[in-house]
């Protein structure tokens, strides 16, 4: 599962551009739809500031957000 570190996120939407299942929404802030997310990790890989992390066994949104 993917979690967002709000402090590092620059809201550039690079993660949105590569998400294959449209699970990421950038509105006032970045949110990940854990129902849609397939955990492919593309977003975490391309985030230029490293604001997204893959976390084992936790739903998106849990942990630091």
């Amino acid at each position: 599962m993917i979690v967002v570190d709000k402090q590092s996120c620059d809201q550039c939407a690079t993660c949105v551009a590569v998400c294959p299942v449209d699970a990421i929404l950038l509105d006032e802030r970045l949110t990940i739809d854990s129902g849609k997310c397939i955990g492919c990790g593309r977003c975490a890989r391309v985030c230029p500031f490293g604001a997204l992390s893959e976390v084992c066994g936790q739903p998106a949104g849990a942990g630091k957000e």
Partner: protein
Amino acid sequence: MAARQFDIAVIGGGPCGIVAATYAAGGGRKVCLIDRKPSPGHPVRCGEAIGLKGFASTVELKPEWIQSKISYMKLVSPSGITVTVPNSYEGYVVDRERMEKDLTTDAVARGAEFIADTSIVSVSSRNGDGYECRSRDSVIHAQCVILAEGVESRLARNLGWSTSLSLRDIHSCAFARIAHDGVEPGTCVFYLGVKRAPGGYVWVFHRGGNTANVGLGVLGESCQKGMPRTLLEDFIREKFPGARVSDLHCGGVPMGRWIRPLVRGGVMLAGDAAHMMNCVSGAGIAYALYSGKIAGTVAAQSFVNGKCRPEMLGSYQDQWASFYGKQQDRSHAIKEVMVGFPDVFLDDVARSATKNCARKMSILSIFVKAFYKRPLLLLKVVRLLR
């Protein structure tokens, strides 16, 4: 919630969307320009370099936007061999924030309504009666929609487009502005090499005085978590020690083919949202301005008796394809080959360029000399370019 009615809704207030709204409103339609941010042009996620040709017939370049006139292009190979070429095209580094503020003022003067601070979360068809654009607290109805929302290109997915970029077709980038006495005036410098920026490059564009835009792009495939930022900070420390660093931002740059089709029903895709980009130089401003202009113009012309005729929007794609579209396709083929160039090859190219007078040599002849030693690589290039 009462819906506001427009003929044409432009979503995204970057250079593409602003110009699209200007031309659409100039064509006599009721137009809105919707942006997520409170004001246009901020933050800038860009190197801000553009050739004079890129403005041609789209917007008039204002002298007050110019931060630096680019007289030289420099390429630094992986092992540090520098090739300097006088810039044969008139080019500038511009203040994009100022440019976009001025262009927005022009759009509003032409009659477009600028709706700021509004994030559209969905666009849906109203079954033959145009489209509904929804934000969290407002609804906008329009006959025709121009999507210029930038690289994320998410709303297009609501309407059946597949805009998700493969990791081979995106550069993950970090940008900063620096002040340092080592910045070379009037020069755009590119640094190549897998150690500096795997699958991409670092750029340093003079931006007036002792300041420069410094940026770095890494190919998605070669990227690891947070790599662009780390590499950019390392680069600045190495080349510009003690520099004052500001405006650190990041972003994604599409590096694939432009999306086909560009039009579905009454919806048009433009700019970064349509993945319009020169895949070799990473130049996107000119493409954004041009696609915005033709999208806006064609959208306005498609109205007959107050109704948008979607079948008339097709000329947008034809015009795009025959001008920048063709150029992008070529640049994409070249990029595909360049990604496979080993660092030693790039060093060879640079070496042969410095041995000869670069002024008299064409880029092509430099490459031909370098390929001479590697016929298999040449074969690959020819196959890809066909």
